[in-house]
């Protein structure tokens, strides 16, 4: 008899079993008849000898070994019937599960792709990277030349954006500078053509000239997947490159969170950037490369680090930065190289989003927990309603294990579709979330975030696990209660509804748990909303509305570097004359762009602040910049046409600078000197004082800033390779100005590349993370409130329905409606108070972990906590009040009549 037969031909099996037992009975009866008993008596005896026919059959069915599966079929069809009978319950259960599981899966798939997953390259676990940020090309070259002393292979890369357009508005594309060994060390083969060789990576290009490798996605997007793309020419920043290969679709680059489109050899960097030959390649103070390596077989990370440290003195000696303080050089020599595992790649956004993501992960786990508690109490109420049914089945001989299995099946019937729905929701949700994450390069770059969110086995496993744990959590309490049930209890309980808590009592602890968890979430939502509000409505010290930012890149212009300031001034003047433009001004750094330029300073005649405090932010601005950006001048004068190169060097400082460097003495007329020995900056006379503005990010405090005139800033080859033109609109939307502004600047110099950004959007993007946290936590906090409300309502309403008789009797004996309401609310209030107390303790403890994500107040902020508790208490009052009101309207006569 095959398994198939046993499973699916049960009807035949049953007939056979029946025949076998009947045969036995007849033979036994015949024997009795032969020994002289009358026929009827013989049959009776035969039956008695065998025992209960049905019991024997059951025992035989158990012996078949397929019992579990057969029962499952039965349980499923029965479970489906039960669920169909209560569509409202089924709907609420499915929705809350789908939402809970979906949210968990969505966040987990982000956590997975951003934090956990390995790079899609050969044997990612043996990849290491050189720790602590970026390295200079001379250091990389030293490492490259000695790599086999400590690693199986080493590679370097740097992400950049290339422009596909030749002048005018830029057509940005995600670029990568890669060492000749890059693809080989990572183990990424070419899908088409070839990848780089060491020969390609020479300053200015190898024997094959300027070559590029493109990604699969770019190949599809830009070349429509044409087979002859290899060999074609692609202009990057106006420099022609020959495409030599396409990488496979799985490879998105070394950086998690962005996808490369075009890679070119490191040796091309100065040409691509239109910088003087050697400025990046030979720069000993330009830190721009990430270095990675592959361990030798069997080598540990510590061994590789040790081997690298042996070579460290030579590498450091050979790459000493010029023009540095001896103390800095000593530190440069001493600082040890460290290799760390790099299986999951590099990421700019990982650092910024790791903690928020994990926080949100905790939030959605709590939400799921609350949903589970809710379902558990709903199922419990249902189980109580079904006690009679279950008791009857027990009395008829069903085993307890069988009943438990039945309940488990019903639980899974909710959990599995809930999980599947959740998976669908998750795919949609995680894509929306990625759209809300600030891309690499800070808020100014506008670079898109790209994460591989395809369903990975780990995500599927996670969802499966969450679904099962969920089912266990919400199914176990009702199941345990059913396990304790005795048939007598079940039948008697029906009649015992007069007083007492009865089997509903367990609803209490569940509701308290749920309230406590909800308070944590609502409090968290309050914290993140306040953080976002205090950042979004923070006075930045400047007026960001109505400004269009034009990012100018003058490196491709034929104008010589020392003439760039004049070129920018001409562009500014031309744009200022465009109709609809109120004023325009140029600066080197744009506020709130996430970028910065700093220098250490001291003011002559005043003791300088100590250590790092000597460093101040720096910006170069054109005359009228303060007015354009709405920065108030407090004393002295603005820059003007007199402050040109050759004239006395001047500067304007802000209040924070005056406070820190001058102890609030008037800065006007004082002499400002660069604090370091670098000598890059001449001494300047301070001619003006302006109010504080935010420099890099709204999260930062108001910090000291020194402003210098564009016309007196950097000189020589380094002068203003790029700058930002701020255009204040005369009233209309600033984004409407782009076309006219582009045309005017093209008239000044068509080779200048431009990109546009509305300033207020850039400011918004700089608090994207906080906005996302506020948005998510508010959503889940609201959900928690709703679920808590349903929970309290359920428990109170259930209590009222169970005590209907008692209430009726009390009213018949003269109890007032108010007393009845008190009676009902009393218990609910106790639960709410307990839940809030527990939740407050939990909130205070948990809030410490999100302190780093908050801005402007303490994590255990009492007023936020009080507001959250009040919100929950309000919901509790409302949810308990409705059933209480109904209780007060119970008609005693009817209750007594119906018993």
């Amino acid at each position: 008899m095959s398994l198939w037969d046993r499973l699916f031909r049960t009807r035949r099996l049953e007939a056979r079993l029946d025949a076998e037992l009947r045969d036995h009975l007849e033979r036994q009866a015949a024997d009795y008849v032969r020994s002289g008993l009358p026929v009827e008596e013989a049959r009776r005896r035969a039956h008695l000898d065998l025992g209960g026919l049905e019991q024997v059959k059951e025992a035989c069915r158990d012996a078949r070994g397929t019992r579990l599966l057969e029962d499952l079929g039965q349980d499923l069809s029965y479970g489906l019937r039960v669920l169909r009978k209560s569509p409202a319950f089924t709907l609420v259960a499915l929705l809350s599960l789908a939402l809970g599981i979906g949210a968990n899966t969505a966040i987990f798939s982000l956590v997975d792709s951003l934090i956990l997953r390995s790079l899609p390259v050969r044997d990612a676990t043996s990849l290491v990277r050189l720790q602590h940020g970026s390295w200079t090309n001379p250091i990389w070259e030293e490492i490259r030349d000695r790599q086999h002393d400590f690693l199986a292979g080493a590679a370097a890369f740097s992400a950049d954006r290339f422009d596909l357009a030749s002048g005018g508005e830029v057509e940005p594309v995600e670029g990568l500078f890669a060492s000749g060994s890059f693809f080989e060390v990572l183990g990424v083969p070419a899908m088409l053509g070839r990848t780089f060789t060491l020969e390609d990576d020479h300053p200015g290009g190898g024997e094959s000239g300027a070559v590029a490798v493109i990604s699969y996605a770019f190949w599809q997007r830009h070349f429509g997947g044409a087979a002859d793309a290899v060999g074609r020419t692609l202009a990057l920043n106006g420099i022609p490159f020959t495409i030599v290969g396409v990488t496979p679709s799985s490879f998105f680059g070394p950086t998690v969170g962005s996808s490369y489109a075009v890679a070119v050899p490191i040796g091309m960097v100065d040409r691509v950037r239109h910088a003087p030959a050697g400025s990046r390649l030979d720069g000993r103070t330009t830190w721009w490369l990430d270095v990675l390596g592959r361990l030798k077989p069997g080598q540990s990370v510590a061994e590789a680090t040790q081997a690298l440290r042996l070579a460290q003195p030579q590498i450091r000696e050979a790459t000493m930065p010029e023009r540095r303080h001896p103390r800095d050089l000593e530190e440069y020599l001493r600082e040890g190289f460290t290799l760390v595992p790099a299986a999951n790649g590099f990421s700019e956004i990982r650092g910024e989003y790791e903690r928020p993501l994990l926080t949100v992960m905790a939030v959605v786990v709590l939400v799921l927990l609350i949903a589970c508690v809710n379902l558990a109490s709903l199922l419990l109420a249902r189980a109580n309603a079904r006690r009679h049914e279950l008791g009857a089945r027990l009395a008829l001989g069903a085993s307890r294990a069988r009943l438990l299995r039945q309940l488990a099946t019903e639980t899974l019937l909710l959990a599995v579709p809930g999980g599947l729905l959740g998976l669908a929701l998750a795919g949609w949700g995680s894509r929306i979330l990625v759209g809300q994450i600030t891309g690499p390069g800070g808020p100014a770059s506008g670079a898109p975030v790209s994460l591989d969110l395809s369903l990975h086995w780990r995500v599927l496993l996670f969802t499966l696990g969450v679904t099962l744990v969920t089912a266990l959590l919400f199914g176990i309490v009702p199941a345990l209660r059913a396990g304790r049930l005795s048939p007598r209890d079940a039948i008697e309980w029906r009649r015992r509804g007069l007083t007492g808590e009865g089997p509903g009592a367990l609803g209490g602890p569940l509701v308290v748990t749920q309230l406590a968890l909800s308070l944590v979430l609502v409090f968290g939502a309050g914290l993140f909303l306040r953080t976002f509000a205090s950042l979004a409505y923070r006075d930045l010290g400047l007026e960001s509305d109505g400004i269009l930012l034009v990012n100018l890149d003058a490196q491709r212009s034929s104008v010589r570097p020392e003439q760039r300031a004049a070129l920018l001034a001409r562009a500014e003047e031309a744009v200022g004359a465009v109709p609809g433009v109120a004023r325009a001004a140029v600066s080197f750094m744009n506020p709130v762009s996430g970028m910065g330029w700093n220098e250490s300073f001291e003011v002559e005649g005043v003791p300088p602040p100590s250590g790092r405090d000597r460093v101040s932010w720096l910006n170069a601005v054109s005359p009228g910049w303060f007015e354009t950006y709405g920065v108030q001048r407090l004393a002295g004068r603005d820059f003007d046409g007199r402050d040109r190169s050759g004239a006395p060097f001047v500067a304007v400082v802000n209040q924070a600078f005056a406070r820190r460097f001058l102890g609030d003495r008037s800065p006007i007329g004082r002499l400002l000197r660069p604090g370091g020995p670098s000598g890059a900056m001449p001494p300047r006379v301070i001619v003006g004082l302006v109010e504080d503005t935010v420099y890099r990010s709204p999260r930062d405090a108001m910090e000291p800033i020194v402003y210098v005139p564009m016309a007196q800033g950097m000189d020589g080859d380094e002068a203003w390779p790029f700058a930002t033109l701020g255009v204040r609109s005369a009233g209309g939307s600033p984004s409407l100005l782009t076309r006219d502004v582009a045309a005017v600047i093209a008239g000044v110099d068509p080779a200048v590349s431009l990109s546009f950004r509305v300033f207020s959007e850039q400011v918004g993007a700089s608090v994207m993370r906080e906005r996302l946290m506020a948005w998510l936590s508010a959503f889940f906090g609201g959900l928690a409130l709703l679920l808590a409300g349903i929970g309290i309502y359920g428990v109170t309403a259930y209590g009222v329905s169970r005590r209907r008789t008692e209430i009726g009797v009390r009213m018949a004996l003269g109890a007032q409606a108010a007393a009845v309401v008190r009676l009902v609310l009393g218990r609910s209030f106790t639960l709410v108070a307990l839940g809030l107390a527990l939740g407050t303790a939990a909130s205070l403890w948990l809030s410490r972990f999100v302190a780093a994500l908050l801005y402007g107040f303490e994590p255990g902020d009492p007023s936020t906590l009080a507001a959250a508790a009040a919100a929950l208490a309000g919901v509790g009052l409302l949810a308990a009040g409705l059933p209480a009101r109904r209780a007060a309207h119970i008609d005693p006569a009817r209750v007594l009549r119906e018993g």
Partner: protein
Amino acid sequence: VSEARTELPQGTLDLLILKVVALGPRHGYAIAQRLQQISRDVVKVQQGSLYPALHRLENRGQLAAEWKPSDTGREAKFYRLTPKGRARLKAEEADWRRLTEAVALILAARAET
């Protein structure tokens, strides 16, 4: 009917069934009768537990069953021993002997003073 019946120790029913079936294919009723006969009615097998045991042994491949015409003219289910069943019988028989001998020895021992 003997009054001095003995309850079967746990797990011996399988052994007895295998032993009876080893003598030749039989149907359930015949197995029950045979057990009673051989044991001279000392062992009274609960018929209610006989059939589940038969089905369990069949399910484990130690017995094979076949529907064949029988003396009553109807088809009956005849069980016979499989090689697997024979091996189990041998092992259980040996076990049983060792156990009963050991128990007998202990019972025969005199008190030492």
